[in-house]
């Protein structure tokens, strides 16, 4: 336990807050992408409300791809990853803690931004609540599944675009269920089913992704 909390959690937290600017970049990217939409298709409030949930989620997925890349990158190149693997601790547990820290520092701030996003895209309060719920349930899923692909591509010199190619198709169901939840909220319909499905996918990912990440990291060490 000491290993995980002191050795990884505190370390990664300290590192994240020491490289704050790098943390803020994906968030700024998200904000800017969302600004592009009203500029590109016109500021009509009705149109914006209609496309809003989709736009926010697509931007979140794209910015997550940017943020995700740094999850294992530094540790791989400076050799810390080798040291983790030889520490005698379960690599899956280490990976899970690293993903947790990464989620806390790069996705949780998204929640702070979301009222602004809702305002920009003219979302109603009901839609905003649904959006928050899908973000809270959905972004850990992005982190967990994304980390598998990050683990696989970490050793490649130019893994950035490849990461997007691998992950975008995998994230499509999440996009569909999340936007459909917000759409339902707009129509005052219940959206518990969508949330339940996202929750189920999250459970599945929590149970299996750490092992897949551990295996992926082992493969990239070879």
């Amino acid at each position: 336990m000491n290993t995980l909390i002191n050795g990884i959690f505190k370390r990664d937290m300290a590192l994240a807050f020491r490289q704050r600017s790098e943390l803020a970049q994906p968030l700024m990217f998200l904000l800017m992408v969302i600004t592009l939409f009203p500029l590109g298709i016109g500021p009509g409030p009705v149109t914006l409300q209609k496309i809003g949930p989709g736009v926010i989620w697509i931007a979140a997925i794209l910015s997550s791809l940017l943020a995700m890349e740094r999850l294992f990158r530094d540790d791989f190149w400076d050799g810390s990853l080798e040291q983790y693997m030889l520490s005698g601790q379960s690599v899956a547990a280490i990976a899970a803690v690293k993903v947790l820290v990464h989620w806390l520092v790069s996705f949780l701030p998204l929640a702070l931004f979301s009222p602004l996003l809702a305002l920009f895209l003219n979302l109603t309060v009901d839609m905003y609540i649904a959006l928050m719920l899908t973000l809270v349930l959905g972004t850990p899923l992005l982190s967990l599944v994304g980390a598998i692909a990050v683990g696989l591509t970490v050793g490649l010199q130019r893994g950035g675009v490849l990461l997007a190619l691998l992950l975008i198709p995998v994230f499509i169901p999440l996009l569909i269920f999340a936007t459909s939840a917000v759409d339902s909220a707009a129509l005052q319909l219940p959206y518990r089913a969508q949330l339940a499905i996202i929750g189920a996918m999250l459970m599945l990912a929590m149970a299996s992704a750490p092992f897949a990440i551990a295996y992926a990291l082992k493969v990239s060490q070879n």
Partner: protein
Amino acid sequence: MWKWLHPYAKPERAYQLCVTLQPYFLWPGILCLIAGSIWGLAFAPQDYQQGDSFRIIYIHVPSAILSMSTYVAMAVAALVGIVWQWRTAFMAMIAMAPVGAVVTFIALFTGAAWGKPMWGTWWVWDARLTSELILLFLYLGVIALYGAFEDKQQAGKAAGVMALVGVVNVPIIHYSVEWWNTLHQGATISKFDKPSIAPEMLWPLLIALLGLALFIAAVTVMRMKNEIIRREYHRPWVKDLAARALGDDHAV
């Protein structure tokens, strides 16, 4: 555990197996494909709604079904490779990927060509076509990941993990796309009406399905031979093989 097995024997034996199996897959496969196509094109009765355009079904449905099953087979091979650390399983997996991608492409293309007379447009965000498109992306991702590694052993394992992640997603994608499609009914003009299929229509379909399955197996086996040679080219048995196969044109 496998200590008594000479470590080099496995790929060589796998190669021999591939050589043995290839003709049994390839020729019956081609035969069934030709038979199914001719039967379907010329002898099967017309569909009362769609006329002769429905004959595209004889290539569209087999390729749509088999594009999914090839992906599942790939994932099974990857699982075998990861769990039992079987090197040849990864080779089988990566041999299947391009074939699966081509079959997926065929399913998409024939779907579009069928859609034009039915819907009046080449592309409609129909549930099945959209799933096929995403499946194609999944295939391309696996192939791209495999290509990105220089060490092919590592590449096989990495692509295997991605294939497994994909296969968990395939049913979810399928289901979510169905959901999305019913939600946005406006986008679709009409769904594929499955022709009320008569036995005379069904038989050629089944034959074409069998033919395509055998064909995929044959090409998989061919490509697996290539993978084995690529990884084992420094072994004496490959050199003997090359000398035997190319001996003639060397003399010329």
